């Protein structure tokens, strides 16, 4: 039953901004809608950029993907700045409690020497992968088109800095804040054979110019492997080998990957559904980067897990891709 209470109230002249009304009708809009749609400037730019004089300042041609409406990339999480930071603040509060508990109870002391060494060798160097992901997503924020996708890329970029810092903290917990584990992990990253493929693919992404291709390479292909290999398969391995407490320190990443995959899948689905050309581009990019990544991760996987691990992770990726409607 609806009770209608008659009050004298001020009648609004309109319910939302005109560009929101054109998209969604004259009704009260959500904060996500008002913060997102049609906010970016689209025409009458004053000067061509000195750094790319063939294009406008905001220009959809910085990727081969074409969209009739760049605001089709609605974020299923409906993150605008305010909802984004509040969500992450909750996650970081949980993480902070976990880290504090881990440190207070000295749980690091319960880990075997072997396990500590393998954390430094296999887990901590991923801070450099996260740093690469930070740059790749900020690249999309800088050169992408339309607020809907660029803001989500910006949030992703900052998340990756946060996760690079969490991984660094794991190193500091292991070395009693001396920083030695970070030095050791960096040595691994720079010269250990198992890491060179991963480092090479990171460097290759950093010189890749199409921002949407980069989104596919980083946020779909690489992240899929990292989520599955490191935070699922290797986590199970840790549990089986007396390292179950480490999961407290990586819980943030597990929650994060799940949250972000929803957005990435939605982006791919929308772009692929737009046209045959987009579909083909995405499928080519996935093939290209999937192949490179499989090769790059193989030596690490073999040492860290097993030869089947990579096959399993690739299978998860292929399923996700099919679900997003990419053939």
């Amino acid at each position, binding site marked *: 039953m609806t009770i209608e209470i008659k009050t004298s109230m001020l009648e609004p002249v309109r319910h939302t901004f005109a560009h929101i009304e054109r998209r969604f009708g004259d009704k009260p809009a959500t904060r996500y809608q008002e913060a997102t749609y*049609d906010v970016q400037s689209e025409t009458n730019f*004053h000067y061509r950029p000195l750094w790319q004089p063939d294009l406008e300042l905001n220009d959809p041609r910085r990727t081969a993907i074409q969209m009739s409406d760049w605001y089709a990339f609605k974020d299923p999480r409906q993150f605008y700045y305010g909802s984004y930071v509040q969500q992450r603040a909750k996650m970081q509060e949980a993480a902070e409690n976990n880290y504090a508990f881990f440190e207070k109870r000295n749980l690091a002391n319960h880990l075997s020497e072997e396990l500590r060494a393998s954390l430094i060798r296999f887990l901590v160097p991923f801070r450099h992968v996260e740093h690469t992901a930070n740059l790749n997503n900020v690249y999309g924020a800088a050169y992408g088109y339309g607020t809907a996708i660029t803001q989500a890329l*910006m949030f992703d970029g900052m998340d990756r800095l946060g996760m690079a810092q969490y991984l660094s903290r794991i190193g500091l917990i292991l070395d009693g804040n001396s920083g030695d584990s970070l030095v050791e992990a960096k040595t691994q990253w720079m010269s250990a054979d198992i890491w060179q493929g991963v480092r090479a693919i990171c460097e290759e992404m950093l010189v890749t110019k199409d921002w949407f291709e980069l989104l596919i390479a980083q946020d779909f292909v690489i992240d899929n492997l990292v989520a599955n290999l490191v935070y699922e398969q290797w986590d199970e391995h840790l549990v089986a080998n007396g390292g179950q407490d480490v999961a407290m320190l990586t819980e943030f990443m597990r929650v994060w990957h799940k949250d972000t995959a929803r957005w990435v899948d939605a982006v791919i689905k929308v772009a692929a559904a737009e046209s045959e050309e987009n579909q083909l581009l995405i499928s080519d990019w996935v093939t290209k980067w999937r192949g490179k990544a499989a090769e790059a991760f193989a030596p690490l996987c073999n040492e860290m897990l097993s030869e089947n691990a990579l096959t399993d992770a690739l299978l998860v990726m292929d399923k996700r891709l099919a679900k997003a409607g990419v053939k």
Partner: protein
Amino acid sequence: MATKKLNLKDKYRLLTRDLDWEFSYQDRKEAFPYEEFEGIKITDWSKWEDPFRLTMDSYWKYQAEKEKKLYAILDAFSQNNGQTNISDPRYVNALKIFLTGVSPLEYQAYQGFAQTGREFGGIGARVACQMQSIDELRHVQTQIHAMSHYNKFFDGFQEFSHQHDRIWYLSVPKSFFNDARAAGPFEFMVAIGFSFEYVLTNLLFVPFMSGAAYNGDMATVTFGFSAQSDEARHMTLGLEVIKFLLEQHEDNVPIVQKWIDKWFWRGTRLLTIVAMMMDYMLPNKVMSWKEAWEVYFEEAGGALFKDLARYGIRMPKYAETIEKEKEHISHQAWWTFYTHGHATGFHTWVPSDEELDWLSEKYPDTFDKYYRPRWEMAKEMEAKGERFYTKALPQLCTVCQIPMLFTEMDDPTQTCYRSSDYEENKYHFCSDGCKDIFDDEPEKYVQSWLPVHQIFQGNCGGPDVEDILRDYYRINVGTDNMDMKGSPDELRWKEWKGTA
């Protein structure tokens, strides 16, 4: 194992600074391609001093707390119809300028800092830029959300995004940021990070926002001061960038000085509109534009340049002209908008007698002599039912894009005109400062999308001005524009207050 206590600096360095590495498989210059073309020399990024050492976990925590407070106030504001508690409905017109003119600049800042946050080769500077980028996104979004409620009850907010790309006076702020973003990453930092953020935004966000509070606008003062709480980080980044560039190589000094000269001039031109908002659009006055200028530019900026003198940096060129302008520009600007009030997306008006007296008191050397007589005349004409609108389209300065409204500062009865010839065309400027900027980079400024030229070239529809206002600008003609008196905004206000 004994755990060492880490201080903030060491912790930040360990967590962040060592994430980057020397490339082995690609050319690093390919990954950071825009660092050299401006002539700036960076010899060692590791000498970068992090101004604030905020890790992401703390960032999320503190920013979420700020957002929670801010949105609680915005919710309360709309639930209680806070717009009825402001001092005077004329005030809302300042907010229309804010949303159409300033908020889109926050968006451009978000884009520009995302670019430097990707392109700088040094991780310390890069991360600081990234944080500023996401903060700027915060600012544009919180501003839209704060204005969302005003949009429901007042005209002139509804097409802010469309209008920013088109309306004549909005090309002034838009071209300012386009100019900075079209430049290289280091000029962008000197333009926006240093000149604009360190000195000039204070004039908008501190005295104007304090004025918003004094005029009963809780929504605006809250987003204003909440945005400023990020600004302290941004200002410090701007200053660190300058010091870093000057310390890296002596060859950087003349380049940086040239950019400071350019961007302080361009910034003071842009702030003309803020001057007018403070002196004419805040019904309850906190301080005059001149007083604000003295505190935030002359005193604070003076201290800053004294500090930078050790690097061989001097005060921006034309500082003496700028000092004289504080007596004039707000009056010259409001007069221009008043007389073009049919072509604006907000309302204009003749100041009340009390306001004229206040201006006389605050500007004893100039107001009675040069400006008050105009307003007395406008008041008389209005009383006779002859509210004055000029029909001519103004000539715009090719650089700052402001109509030729400024006078020679030594002779306030004489409009200032300058010009340059370039490739068989003549280009017009409002000042020596703007002419210098053009002469240094004519190939850039000949591209300017000058709204009045565009109208004459038929690129904005027409044929009549009213067609352009209605169809191309999407101004609701007769509703959003013209005098405050008799406007729908005013009528609604009177109904709310029971004085209709």
